[in-house]
């Protein structure tokens, strides 16, 4: 008999029952503690390129992951096979593996008293993301691209306009009796136009809007026009001589800089001594003007959830306050390693140990608009896109490829490309001279426009 005859249909899947069943089977089979995660996702995506539908994708996927402890030994298994045979293999496999791993004094589930789920509606799920028929979703992508193509005669090609929608349900259960679940929705519109100048050289840029509800998306037309504006301004970009000038980071790239603070403050990097923030709790690591917060509780946020990957409620954590490092971001394991308390930042994939994940991670905005910040720079570089991933969290060494616009006498002048901006991240945090007022959550990490002093631009 083929195994698939026992498979439950997606609609009939009771994820809660499966998760608790997997945990109790693991306990019966000899685990001293266990937790299981089960998820079910539905996705739709389409790309319209040069006014024609290019791709259309629709799918559902499911998976489950089990983590078992036998005393202080831990192991995990995961599977997309929801048949009875698949579940037995998941449980048996995890217990077999746990015989072989080492005793780890810090291993275990969170303390029972730490478990729980935020009450109330966190506004994470809106069924309107799938309320339109596919034809109308394609129309969103088509309108975004059309607006980009029509915005400027120099927009001559395109990687397309896109519309994506997805919903996902997640259940976590553990042997201490915790069972929690939540559902989240997501949708986005993108436009990626290509501009060409009279010499034939091409530039690409993009813009997008993302939201948990269709009703909150920016209009496809505004996405297309903004994408075109960002693309056309790159035409004719050139290299500039190497120099040290003030650098202004557009909020899209500033968010990527802030993400490095998150990585450096993550418990995993701290206890392994692989972060320049190891041992710096309570010390001044940034300028007086810097306050950085992680908040997993903001209604509707991209980084919001009622509980973390271990069943600990999310919360608001002040990571840096007026330049002083106040807290690391921890799950229960890294908290035990560092003799601290979990901050509800466990992130859990299907496989392996929980890592550290952010809630809504942001830098508190300042007073000035981006225009005012640029106007205050005599001679400098406004970075609009990074290329490459050059940061070393152990040393703080930072060097990334950059594209943007040259600032002369407080005004944006010509586009610049094929240069790098480099410095040491420890110094960069102390040299943030200006913080914009333009904080906006476009993903779970958000940062206003920043002006940083003392960095090196390498070009000609």
């Amino acid at each position: 008999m083929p195994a698939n005859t026992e498979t439950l249909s997606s609609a009939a899947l009771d994820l809660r029952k499966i998760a608790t069943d997997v945990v109790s089977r693991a306990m019966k089979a000899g685990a001293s503690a266990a937790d299981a995660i089960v998820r079910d996702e539905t996705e739709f995506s389409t790309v319209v390129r040069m006014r024609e539908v290019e791709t259309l994708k629709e799918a559902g996927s499911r998976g489950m992951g089990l983590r078992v402890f036998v005393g202080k030994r831990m192991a995990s298994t995961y599977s997309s096979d929801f048949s009875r045979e698949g579940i037995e293999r998941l449980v048996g496999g995890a217990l077999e593996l746990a015989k072989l791993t080492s005793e780890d004094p810090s291993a275990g589930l969170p303390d029972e008293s730490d478990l729980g789920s935020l009450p109330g509606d966190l506004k994470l799920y809106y069924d309107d993301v799938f309320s339109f028929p596919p034809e109308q979703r394609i129309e969103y992508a088509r309108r975004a691209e059309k607006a980009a193509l029509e915005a400027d005669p120099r927009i001559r090609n395109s990687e397309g306009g896109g519309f994506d929608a997805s919903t996902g349900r997640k259940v976590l259960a553990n042997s201490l009796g915790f069972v929690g679940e939540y559902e989240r929705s997501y949708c986005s519109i993108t436009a990626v136009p290509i501009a060409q100048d009279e010499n034939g050289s091409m530039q690409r840029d993009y813009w997008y809007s993302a939201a948990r509800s269709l009703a909150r998306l920016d209009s496809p037309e505004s996405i297309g026009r903004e994408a075109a504006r960002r693309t056309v301004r790159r035409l004719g970009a050139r290299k500039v001589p190497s120099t040290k000038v003030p650098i202004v980071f557009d909020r899209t790239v500033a968010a990527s800089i802030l993400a490095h603070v998150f990585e450096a403050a993550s418990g995993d990097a701290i206890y392994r001594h692989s972060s320049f923030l190891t041992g710096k709790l309570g010390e001044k690591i940034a300028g007086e003007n810097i306050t950085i917060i992680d908040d997993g509780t903001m209604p509707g946020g991209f980084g919001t959830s009622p509980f973390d990957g271990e069943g600990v409620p999310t919360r608001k954590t002040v990571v840096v306050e007026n330049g002083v490092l106040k807290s690391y971001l921890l799950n229960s394991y890294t908290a035990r390693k560092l003799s601290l308390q979990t901050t509800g930042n466990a992130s859990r994939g299907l496989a392996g140990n929980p890592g550290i994940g952010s809630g809504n991670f942001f830098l508190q905005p300042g007073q000035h608009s981006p225009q005012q910040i640029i106007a205050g720079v005599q001679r400098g570089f406004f970075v609009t896109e990074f290329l490459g991933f050059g940061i070393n969290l152990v040393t703080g060494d930072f060097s990334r490829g950059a594209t943007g616009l040259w600032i002369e006498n407080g005004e944006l002048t010509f586009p610049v490309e094929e240069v790098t901006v480099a410095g040491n991240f420890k110094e960069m945090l102390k040299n943030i001279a200006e913080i914009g007022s333009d904080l906006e959550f476009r993903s779970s990490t958000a940062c206003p426009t920043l002006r940083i002093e003392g960095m090196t631009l390498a070009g000609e």
Partner: protein
Amino acid sequence: MTQNQSLFFQKFGITPNDLQRYLSEALSAGGEYADLYFEYLTSTSISVDEGIVKSASQGISAGCGVRVLAGERTGYAHTDDLAPEKILRAARTAALIARGPGQQPVQAFKETAVHQLYQISSPSADAEIAAKLDLVMRADRAARAYDPRIVQMRGVYADELRQILVIGSDGTFADDIQPMARMSILCIAKNGNTSARGQSGGGGRVGLDYFNSEKTPEYFAAEAARQAIIQLDAREAPAGEMEVVLGPGWPGILLHEAIGHGLEADFNRKGTSAFSGLIGKRVASEKCTVVDNGTLPSRRGSINVDDEGSPTQNTVLIEKGILKGYLSDKLSSKLMGLPDTGNGRRESYEHIPMPRMTNTYMLSGDDAPQDIIRSVKRGVYAVNFGGGQVDITSGKFVFSASEAYMIEGGQVTAPLRNCTLIGNGPDALTKVSMVGNDLQLDEGVGTCGKDGQSVPVGVGIPTIKLDKMTVGGTAS
């Protein structure tokens, strides 16, 4: 019936008649071509951290992706449930990319003759977990024994066995069992207040015995530890344009970023690549010949057939500096009237295939490596890299050196930190003035990302000199 076909036919109860039915359903709305990609993937990962094996994990993922092509349009749907009604539903969903009556018949299946590139007696996925655990523990001991300044060591052993069956309405019927194993090591060195990091790793489509004979855990551990110790004394990299020498092996990532992506056929079909329209033109110095070769035995980037069921091949991209060809999949080859080079790859059954690299490398030249270094007055010698990225449209690319040195007066001198290199794809290789006689392929650690899909790749290069490139450090 091969061992692999029997997995899908017996375990999941799929029959050749079912396959016909699924493809007919996929073509029912007027699609011109349809294919089914069945995948059954098992993975194992074991890591050592702080001297103990903190975690071990194993997983299974299985499913089927259905693709339908109609002109330039692609419809795609997938299911992780291999029950006939679920695959039929996916086929019906993907079919809707086309509009019209079904016209294309499904051709009679013809089995693709495949290479035999994975020369192993038994895949490491079948080996005892205890033997894999032993590998990471050996690496841990070796890293710590290397130098007392090594304060942290993390090692991971991971393997997988991917079984695929690709069925196309053009009669394609191909299957493959693709093994993969890899070790990766990260060391942190500390001396007073200075910390540094070193990384190494390798593997390929090899069995467990590879790590006991060819490249041992001790070898990888010592390499990561060596790099971390060297970095303790590194000084700031310079900023600005200068001569750059790339060492052999992994620095071949230059080719991957600077030209490889730009030569993927999809970008050129759409005219979005900085290389669009440059076939037959000079894009490199005449010392440069670059190939993408998916048929090298046991390499990480090699596969017997690609993920569309086409045999992989050795494709010349640049011959003596002249651009010769693109890397293509079925869709681009059909639309562009080019040969299919067997480069249609995908991350998993959840993903649409597209042109991707396999093993991309430059052939050896005539220069002795020491002569190349001796010829440089002041420049950078980069021998190991982290990652890289390219903007296909503008052609600009960067890659970050994890181990690099100054060259002063023809001599390799101080180690450098924070050394990023940036250049322009279509002219970077025109500045290659010397090519060494020492081609090396990388150790087998590369993973390439495109459109959110990751696939394993290889790179290689002999020692080369570029007369001018921008080094993105902070020192003057």
